[in-house]
């Protein structure tokens, strides 16, 4: 690191919008919630300090374990599948074709559909009898398409499928990444006689690897906090053994349905630490594979 060229005062002055907001609106509430996580706090009465009780309870809480497990499964399918699909779509949308703007819009527009509407649209798409998914599967010869949302085995698959519909933002970011790759690299690869797949592997992917890293990290953050969509889709029908119950849903239930704000705060802090750890891990692992140009 280069020695400091600017005074702390100047630096603080420029970054003031951020750290003022951090101190006023984040740090205080964070400290309070950390304290609350060591309390019994039913929201309507003052918190009572109970030491590590909430954290100890986490160890034995089977519902918590289930929610963590489901979230792990979801994150570890949705992120890789989403990444591969988003990269492929981005490459496709980067081709010079007529109607490029239209095709790009098609992929992007679902991200702005209000979740309430998206929930009902997909409940209908996945109706085992009339839904588009089942009817098209039947036309290609699958006699018994799955029950999708209603089947404990397929529920997770269904959710991952729906999550792919909201892939627009990462695709747009990948598109931008693709345009950053200098044309000369492809020219050089062609001169060397590299096939399309080798170009993908040796030019495209290394070229967008920082973008992949960025999107994977955003994916970790959002998939660990997945809440609204499963809540919309399975509120009345959660399935046995909580097959569609996720971490943030449990957190939310504890806070506002079971009136256990202390326990919910402990859950939230654990979640924060998990996400932080995963992000750190991804950073470490990416050291070797992510290529930064000009660094």
């Amino acid at each position: 690191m280069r020695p400091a060229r600017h005074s702390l005062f100047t630096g603080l002055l420029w970054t003031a919008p951020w750290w003022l907001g951090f101190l006023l609106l984040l740090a205080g509430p964070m400290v309070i919630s950390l304290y609350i996580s060591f309390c019994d706090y039913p929201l309507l009465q003052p918190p009572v300090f109970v030491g590590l009780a909430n954290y100890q309870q986490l160890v034995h809480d089977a519902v918590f374990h289930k929610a963590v497990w489901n979230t792990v499964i979801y994150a570890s399918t949705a992120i890789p599948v989403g990444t591969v699909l988003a990269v492929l779509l981005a490459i496709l949308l980067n081709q010079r074709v007529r109607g490029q703007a239209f095709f790009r819009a098609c992929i992007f527009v679902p991200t702005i559909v209000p979740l309430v509407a998206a929930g009902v649209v997909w409940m209908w798409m996945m109706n085992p009898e009339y839904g588009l998914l089942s009817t098209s599967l039947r036309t290609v010869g699958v006699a018994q398409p799955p029950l999708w949302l209603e089947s404990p085995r397929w529920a997770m698959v269904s959710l991952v499928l729906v999550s792919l519909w909201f892939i627009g933002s990462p695709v747009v970011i990948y598109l931008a990444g693709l345009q950053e790759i200098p044309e000369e690299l492809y020219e050089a690869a062609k001169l060397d006689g590299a096939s399309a797949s080798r170009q993908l592997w040796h030019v495209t992917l290394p070229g967008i690897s920082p973008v992949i890293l960025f999107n994977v990290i955003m994916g970790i953050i959002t998939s660990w906090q997945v809440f609204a969509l499963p809540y919309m889709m399975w509120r009345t029908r959660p399935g046995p053994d909580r097959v569609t119950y996720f971490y943030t849903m449990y957190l939310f239930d504890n806070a506002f349905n079971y009136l256990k704000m202390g326990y919910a705060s402990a859950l939230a802090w654990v979640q924060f630490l998990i996400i932080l750890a995963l992000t750190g891990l991804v950073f470490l692992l990416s050291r070797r594979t992510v290529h930064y140009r000009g660094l």
Partner: protein
Amino acid sequence: MNIRGVILVLVLGLPAAGLLAFGPRGLHEVPPDRTIVRYWEKWTGVEGQAMQRIVDRFNQTEGTRRGIWVDYNALGDVDKRMLISAAGGDPPDVAGLPDRFVPPYADQGALRPLDDLAREFSLDLDAFKPIWLSICRYDGKLYALPSTPYTIALYYNRSLFRAAGLDPDHPPQTTAELNEYAQRLTRFEGGDPTNPRAGRIVQLGFTVSPAMLGWWTWIWPYFFDGQLWDGRRFTLDTPATHAALGWVRELRTAVGNDRVLQFEGTSAAIESAQNPFLSGQLAMVFQGPWLANWARVYAPDLDYGVAPFPSVTRERQHVFASEDVFVIPTGARHPREAMVFLEYVLRQEVMEELCQAHGKVSPYRLPGSEFFARHPNPHIHVFDEMATSPEVFGYPSMPTWAEAWTEMLYLLETVMREAREPAEAIRMTQTKVDSVVADYERMAAHRRGGAR
């Protein structure tokens, strides 16, 4: 600026600017010198309009005289909003809640006890049917006042009864009989002639599935003379529950559980217009008086009857009763002014106007002479009478009910999907809820100790 930019500004920018400058403000004017009573309610649409009319009338008459202005405010998730605003120290003056929130909120001290105000305003509480008042009580104190009450009955499709060779004037009298009817009312299609039941279900007799209007997933032990809360303990692992879940399972295995699951998956997903009872796919359903309103709109030709839901024996008639209630949160700024308004709403003619508009029953012992005659639900007297059954029951008055209900939902799902044996599932749920109750007790004791 290029041409795209110009078009963009014309198409999006101008309307947006126009909206900001000239759009509706939605601010209503409050006459000066009035005390504003903030009233949060969950009703919109037709139900909300009925309450708005009453509020308007109050503001013009009684409100003008007493210097009170009620601000009716329809919001989603009123219970959670009230919770957060109460925790933040800024609750409304009146809130309309579903009754099941009374025990937990009262237990945490979020609701103002109303006994003193009821005396001060000389409310005639004896004029209400006992069940509607007992739902409002917790731990011996009055924490709420009845708003729109209802009982839940068995709706049955008379045409489908006739088609199945059943007497449409003779709904099932026991749970066993209901199962038998349900089997006869289930129709298959596409099976081979030797075994018609091999096909898929096109019409189902009855199901407890929460996806097909079975909203009260915890309720079935009650119809087998059981109960879930004795005031101290969660009492799930009892013969009544085992009988109830055995009955649930039998209801499904009799027609083939795989097929029932398939049927529920296909036609349920969304209620309302595709309501399986209204579309004739489901012959019997456990539902409240509002279903008649939907029937009038979506299926005006439906020939249906209403009867009390059968219990395990003919001797007893268990009836589930529930209601929306009015509460005054602790920390409300104008509890007395709120009570002036509630006293007005609770007047029999006003209350019954509201209940009628909502398609619900009247909380009064003796509904007004016109109440049944004008009511939109032709079967409303059945619902009203059911509320006087000696075995009428409400939600378990349990401070940890929310968690217990969640567990009951999973229990039912487990049994319906044959993921576990009922006996084992019941034991697991009992253990789980026991630990929830124990945790709660420990914390409550800790608090009492700390307070001393």
